[in-house]
């Protein structure tokens, strides 16, 4: 049975698209046929992060309007043949998406894909609502910072009340917390909320912590999902998250400040 995952946050700039790209690639790498959809119509970004921006012919809105078939619009990733991208339209806005149209596309995808990752736009308006409406699981991406936490909280309220599952009184959407741009050193100095602080406010199952990392920016710039950078801390953190989501029991990492050993001190400082 296919599962629809929405990557959402409420607030912008917290790492939804980075996370969507990394998670989708991670699931595909594990051998699951995965589609990732950019719901940010008008502000198309996912194709850049995945490095397929030059191969976009048709997009999500074309498919909804019946101007192209799903197969024509899906872009197969060059690094992993299990990953497919459905890009957003850059020339339209979020009103081009309809509930009926989105539902139809997702149903079609469910026939052949194992996981469908929906990259939600920021905000709580139409685009974000449609991205989460059909979801089975929600990855709530949050930065350790008060406004991001509050917006996530708001989003969780919407997930609990305005999804298809909520409206049909089915089992609610399964919610997971992903804490991104985490900096243990700054947490220690009291400049940033700790994992416990965030957990206290959101009381949500923590799927993983992604440390603030230069690797993320480098990955975005080069169009490679950061999860493929196996040397980087962020890449490893995303790998852990995919493993945990698939049911593996992996201890949390990157929460505490890394202790530098003698060699570390000698070579890194």
């Amino acid at each position, binding site marked *: 049975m296919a599962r629809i995952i929405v990557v959402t946050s409420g607030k912008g700039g917290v790492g939804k698209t980075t996370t969507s790209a990394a998670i989708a690639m991670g699931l595909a790498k594990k051998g699951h046929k995965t589609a990732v959809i950019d719901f940010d119509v008008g502000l198309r970004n996912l194709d850049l992060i995945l490095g397929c921006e030059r191969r976009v012919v048709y997009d999500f809105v074309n498919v909804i309007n019946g101007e192209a078939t799903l197969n024509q619009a899906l872009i197969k990733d060059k690094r992993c043949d299990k990953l497919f991208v459905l890009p957003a339209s850059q020339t339209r806005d979020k009103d081009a998406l309809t509930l009926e149209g989105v539902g139809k596309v997702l149903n079609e995808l469910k026939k052949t894909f194992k996981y469908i990752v929906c990259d939600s736009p920021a905000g709580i308006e139409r685009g974000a609502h449609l991205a989460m409406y059909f979801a089975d699981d929600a990855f709530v991406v949050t930065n350790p910072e008060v406004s991001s936490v*509050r*917006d996530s*909280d*708001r989003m*969780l*309220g*919407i997930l*609990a*009340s305005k999804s298809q599952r909520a409206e049909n009184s089915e089992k609610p959407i399964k919610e997971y917390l992903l804490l991104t741009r985490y900096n243990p050193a700054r947490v220690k100095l009291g400049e940033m909320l700790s994992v416990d602080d965030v957990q*206290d*406010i*959101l*009381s949500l199952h923590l799927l993983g912590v992604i440390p603030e990392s230069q690797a993320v920016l480098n990955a975005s710039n080069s169009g490679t999902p950061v999860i493929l950078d196996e040397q980087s801390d962020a890449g490893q953190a995303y790998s852990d998250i995919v493993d945990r989501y698939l049911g593996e029991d992996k201890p949390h990492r990157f929460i505490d400040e890394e202790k530098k050993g003698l060699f570390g001190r000698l070579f890194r400082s």
Partner: protein
Amino acid sequence: MPNQSSSLTLPAFEFKSSVITVPVLNIYTTDINHFSLQLREKVKQAADFFKNSSVLIDLQNVQDQELNLPLLIDAIHNVEILPIGIRGGSEAQQQSARKIQLPIFSIPRASAETAPVEKTPEPAPPIANTNQSNEEPQNNTINTLITQPVRSGQRIYAKGDLVITSHVSAGAEVMAEGNIHIYGSLRGRALAGILGDEESRIFCTDLQAELISIAGNYRISEDIEDSYKKIPVQIYLDKQALIIKNT
């Protein structure tokens, strides 16, 4: 030919049953002058609120006495309130209501309970509830239980008491006509006794609220002493003053 097409013509009317809420005016005296004077005083306090509002007259407390009903109705009309019927009252009183074409409503079960015998501090004539032997406790039993966190931006309204076994986030709002119990952190707003019940209270195991209010008497976060934060408390009204007490 009209009988043939009668099934096709549009219905001119339809009888339907519907439930509405109407204020009840409990009568405690048969002295119309005294009544009229007090009523006028009361209405003066909120003229807009009472103007042309409908009211059901409850005669249960004066059913053993002589009452000039038409005069009572006139006194009510004089302050621009519209009586829509009576309930209770003696046979003679009901007869006189029929004469002036005022509908007679039946007395709901346990209605004596809603009489302000217990609630108002004023010594209302404590008429014995003779025919209400099966008096039930508080009949506003539409209590609400919430087991999920109340998230930022969500609003909960409970007609009776509200019990929350999770936390209330900042930016969330929980309201109840009765008491509010929160077994978790209260970081949002909690408003108890929202229809003016000054006896209602807020109970909370971890108070970090943005705002707390009982029957419209409120306090914002800034005015809540830090010593009360993050400990179990109850909040109640004492002579219009909001009291927070460690439980």
